């Protein structure tokens, strides 16, 4: 009466089972794939390539009809113009880049310093109405910046933060903190609380346990989060153009936008400035690409 083990297992060897069929097999499929992907890649990359080309073309080649793809004279003049002003001193653009770096860097730092401990607290402690609080924090990101820029403008004018780097830093921090809390909470949730419990039993205080055990494990997550915050602050345009006016405070996005217009537009300079503007973000994204993927797929796999 007992069921023998053999009955329960299929007797057909694995290789004799029918294989799942494909409509487009092997080579044909990959050819189509490659062709489609190539078309897509050209479409996506063309503006970028064109920007890079324009930045190293002389002005008359920029306007050449038909457009020159290859045989043009390469020049680095535009890049020099980005950093060196017509009078030989620092250009307005280079000041804008420096402002961007300061504003983006400091606001990211602030958002990380405030957001990481907050995320840890929300992850570890039984906070009253935790879900509601987290939802409220997230809700500050529901509105696009352009909706709130007028009230912010009026408030900033009252307190004297208009046209100041501090004003930009504060508003970018305010926008990055919710994002940092939410993203970091995911990372903190992944680190077992038992590490801190164990460390506390081993003679450390709660904060020491956090700093010595949880924090090192969070570094990849912090890097990924900070890069996202940095990219947001670096790219931000709406607040920057509304809340700043003088060249000494203006960040790069409005400064580059300001190059377009007037009687003539120096497209070579615009392109070169754009290339310089895009580089830091590309480099950062490349450096933390592994963590970016980890950050995006977080929670998809159960430990």
């Amino acid at each position: 009466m007992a069921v023998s083990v053999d009955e329960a297992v299929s007797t057909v060897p694995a290789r004799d089972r029918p294989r799942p069929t494909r409509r487009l097999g092997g080579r044909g499929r990959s050819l189509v794939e490659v062709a489609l992907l190539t078309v897509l890649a050209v479409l996506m990359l063309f503006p970028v390539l064109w920007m890079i080309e324009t930045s190293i073309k002389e002005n008359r080649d920029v306007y050449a009809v038909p457009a020159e793809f290859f045989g043009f004279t390469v020049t680095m003049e535009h890049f020099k113009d980005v950093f060196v002003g017509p009078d030989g001193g620092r250009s307005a653009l280079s000041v804008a880049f420096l402002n961007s770096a300061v504003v983006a860097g400091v606001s990211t730092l602030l958002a990380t310093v405030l957001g990481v401990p907050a995320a840890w607290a929300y992850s570890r402690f039984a906070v009253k109405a935790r879900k509601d609080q987290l939802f409220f924090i997230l809700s500050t990101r529901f509105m696009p910046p352009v909706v709130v820029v007028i009230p912010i403008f009026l408030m900033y004018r009252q307190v004297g933060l208009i046209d100041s780097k501090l004003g930009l830093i504060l508003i970018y921090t305010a926008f990055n903190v919710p994002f940092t809390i939410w993203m970091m909470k995911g990372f903190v949730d992944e680190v077992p609380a038992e590490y801190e419990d164990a460390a506390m039993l081993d003679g450390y205080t709660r904060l020491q346990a956090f700093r010595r055990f949880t924090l090192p494990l969070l570094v990849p997550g912090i890097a990924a989060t900070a890069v996202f915050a940095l990219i947001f602050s670096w790219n931000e345009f709406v607040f920057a153009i509304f809340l700043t006016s003088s060249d000494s405070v203006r960040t790069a996005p409005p400064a580059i936008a300001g190059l377009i217009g007037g009687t003539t537009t120096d497209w070579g300079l615009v392109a070169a400035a754009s290339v310089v503007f895009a580089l830091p973000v590309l480099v950062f994204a490349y450096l933390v690409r592994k963590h970016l993927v980890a950050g995006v797929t977080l929670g998809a796999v159960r430990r």
Partner: protein
Amino acid sequence: MAGIEVTALHKRYPDGTVAVDHVDLSIGDGELFVMLGPSGCGKTTTLRAIAGLERQTTGDIRIGDTLVNDLPPAERDIAMVFQFYALYPHLRTRDNLAFPLRAEGLPKAEVRERVAEAARLMRLDQLLDRRPRQLSGGEQQRVALARALVRRPRAFLMDEPLTNLDAELRADMRTEIKHLQGELGTTMVYVTHDQVEAMSLGHRIAILNKGRVEQIGTPLEVYDRPASLFCAAFIGSPPMNLIEVAVADEKLRSQGGLVLTPPPGLPRDRRLVAGVRPEALEVTTPGAEGSVPARVVSAEWLGDEIIYVVDHSGQHDVRVRMPPTVRFAADTPVGLRHTGGTPTVYDVHTEELVA
């Protein structure tokens, strides 16, 4: 070493859930005390309160003579082993073991000596230079145990330490923990949801349910006289049969005619349930002396025994433990007979033991 006294421990979370409801425990010095219960019964919260990782709402905890209510975990002089081991991932075994000692600020020579001793005790000598992720689950748990005992704490707290191991390893580690505790003679509070683990390890077992202690007793007491219907259903595999009975002619009679010897002092005016262990029943040929007619629903051949599930009128799924030599096919009519002594009897409404 020290005993642990828990008095009227109450834990209520901000959202209103009561995790531990006025629990009293008195754990003796050198005792291996098991807290057993289903998930959410408050056993882990109680343990974490003893460790100081969770602050109780009200109630007192004493370790030895010290009232530890307001002491941080580090000052309670206890060690804890977690379900997920919680080995520091960036440290080698050696440093994981030395870590709590360095935190205490012991001199290097003594740290080395005590790490070596703990490693020998837990047979970790070959693994001292590995990192946690290079160790198997069993090895990680041995390191976690060694890290707990290297400090020579006043008490060990174990939070389901074997749950993540596979069955075979779990049995080995169980033996090892019991042996170790016996050898060191240190007080140990062990939390588990596995009744086999509780029965085989504990000097005494506390069964918890919904934040309350249902019963405290030695494994045998808990097995022989479960204090409530919950304990009766929780302890034993297969669990106790709970058969509704009525008192008539100095006997306990089930609806299907099964006759049991009543314990003395039974109240007459209440609805009663008798708890009968599967080994206190017997499946017989139909019509055997003292048997009632029944039908085999299914039989589980376990090698050393057969668990029969039988129906007799009005009572479904009665489990009977029989030697492997007695065989009946499913669906055959059989007899069911009570062979054990007096059963435990519970009140249907209060769910508590009446006699």
